[in-house]
């Protein structure tokens, strides 16, 4: 009886979580340009349109460039902070860590507005000292903004990875005469690599899905996929939106599935590691 109740509850949660995704997947298969569920007819034409029409392709390109580059930038900012804090534990590194975590704790609209004001004014400040450069509405503004916005994720995963290094290994290598650089190259990097990759993957997937920062920084010139969907949402439905949604769900499932396959997902999310349980 009790077991039935438990399974019923978990099953109900699963159904509610799946319901909108199933409907969207169904809608994406409609033969005509209608939002009908269950779908009338069967066609993969909307997926084809997504991958062949120039404006959708441009959005896919923008989103991919931004996600690939900003996640890389985020990791490059996070790794030195996490390493330094692990190696020395000094206050100013802790402050930097706090700064890195801050944007994630606040409602995103705040950070987004901060970036908007920064890029608009940045152009003006630079022109004052004789540098004419376009910042606002440029793709690199979105890339940098996303990198700062998502720096939290690699920061947390890499710190977790560093903490998992057995201190005795470090002590042993020091006794045998290894210096910081050698230890970094031969112990730290190999042991932290899975955490670097998962930090990158988290930042990548979230950047792909991010709307408000991308919209505020360059929404009218650099159209990412979420912005494009939201715009189409306002100016008339098309089943292409549904096919994008399906692709997004699949990408997220694959990326997180890979992290789970090659790493310890429960530990990454804060459970004890496998051995301890």
């Amino acid at each position, binding site marked *: 009886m009790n077991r039935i109740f438990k399974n019923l509850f*978990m099953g109900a949660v699963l159904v*509610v979580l799946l319901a*909108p*995704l199933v409907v969207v997947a169904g809608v994406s298969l409609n033969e005509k340009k209608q939002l009908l569920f269950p779908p009338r007819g069967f066609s993969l034409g909307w997926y084809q349109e997504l991958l062949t029409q120039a404006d959708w392709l441009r959005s896919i390109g923008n989103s991919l460039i931004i996600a690939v580059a900003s996640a890389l930038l985020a990791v490059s900012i*996070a790794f030195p902070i996490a390493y330094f804090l692990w190696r020395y534990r000094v206050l100013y590194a802790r402050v930097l860590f706090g700064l890195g975590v801050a944007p994630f704790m606040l409602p995103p609209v705040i950070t987004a507005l901060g970036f908007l004001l920064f890029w608009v004014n940045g152009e003006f400040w630079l022109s004052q000292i004789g540098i004419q450069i376009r910042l606002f509405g440029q793709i690199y503004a979105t890339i940098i*903004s996303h990198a700062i916005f998502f720096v939290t994720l690699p920061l947390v995963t890499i710190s977790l990875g560093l903490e998992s290094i057995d201190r005795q290994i470090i002590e042993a290598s020091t006794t045998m005469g290894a210096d910081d650089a050698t230890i970094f190259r031969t112990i730290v990097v190999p042991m932290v690599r899975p955490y670097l990759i998962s930090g990158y993957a988290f930042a990548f997937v979230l950047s792909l899905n991010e709307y408000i920062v991308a919209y505020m920084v360059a*929404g009218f010139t650099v159209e990412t996929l979420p912005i494009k969907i939201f715009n189409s949402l306002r100016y008339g439905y098309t089943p292409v939106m*549904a096919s994008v949604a399906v692709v997004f769900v699949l990408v997220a499932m694959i990326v997180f599935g890979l992290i789970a396959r090659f790493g310890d997902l429960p530990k990454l999310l804060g459970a004890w590691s496998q051995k301890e349980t």
Partner: protein
Amino acid sequence: MIGGKPKGLAQNAVLFYPALMLGVFFVVPFATMLAMSFFRKSDQLYERAFELTNYAQFLTAFFGKTLGFSLLLAGAAAVVSVIVAFPFTYLMTRQPRRVQVRWLVFILAVLSLSEVIIGFAWATLLSRTAGLSNVLVWLGLLGTPQAWSPGFPALLLGLCYVGFPYTVLVLYPALSRLDPELPEASRMLGASPLRSFFDVVVPVLRNAIISSLIMVFVFNLGAYVLPQVLGRPQHWTLSVHITDQAIQNSNMPFAAAMAVFLMLVSVALVALTLLFGQEKRLAR
């Protein structure tokens, strides 16, 4: 090897690049926003000034209503999310690790989904042509298909859908580290599973529940797309109005003042959760 103080500029050089990036691209934007909130709106976007007019605009009835609605909506969604997510996460952490991993992959996938996509998905699910009501008509429970979106229930539902996976992940560390012997002991002493859940598990994790409530509340305050897709204009939250002022009305100073206000509320709430965390550590 680990610990100690870094010596000289050479060892500190590692921090130079990240400090520069965070300084220029995070501290400066926030400082700009703070300064902007005291400026005056003008024909050239804004002019430098130091006045509190932007903050004074908070005192209007319209702003009060918006703020009140935003807090109410975020609060209601946070309560629902935690009520559902707590037992769910508890049951999930009692599963074998392999099953847990599958759930976690799915939860993460839902969490990472764009608000735009979730808004679109729920709008479709609640629509007249492709929605749930069709299923009910087919089952004979409903006469004709109905549109359930936009509206307040649709918005609340959407927000809970976004908040639920986040709540699960916030609760996950505390619940997965809960000593399984604790509920087991109470079962051995004759408590029913339900009683052991409410009399042992819930009280032990009281702090985790409270801090997750606050975290989800702050998370919900950030909802931006859903109020526009699933709600009507009177359901627009502070986040929507901030963007609206900044982009449509080009009133940067007022938008900045609202954002600073929202930030203060959030920071105060986050500080509160840190306080609860501290207490827990002391109690151990």
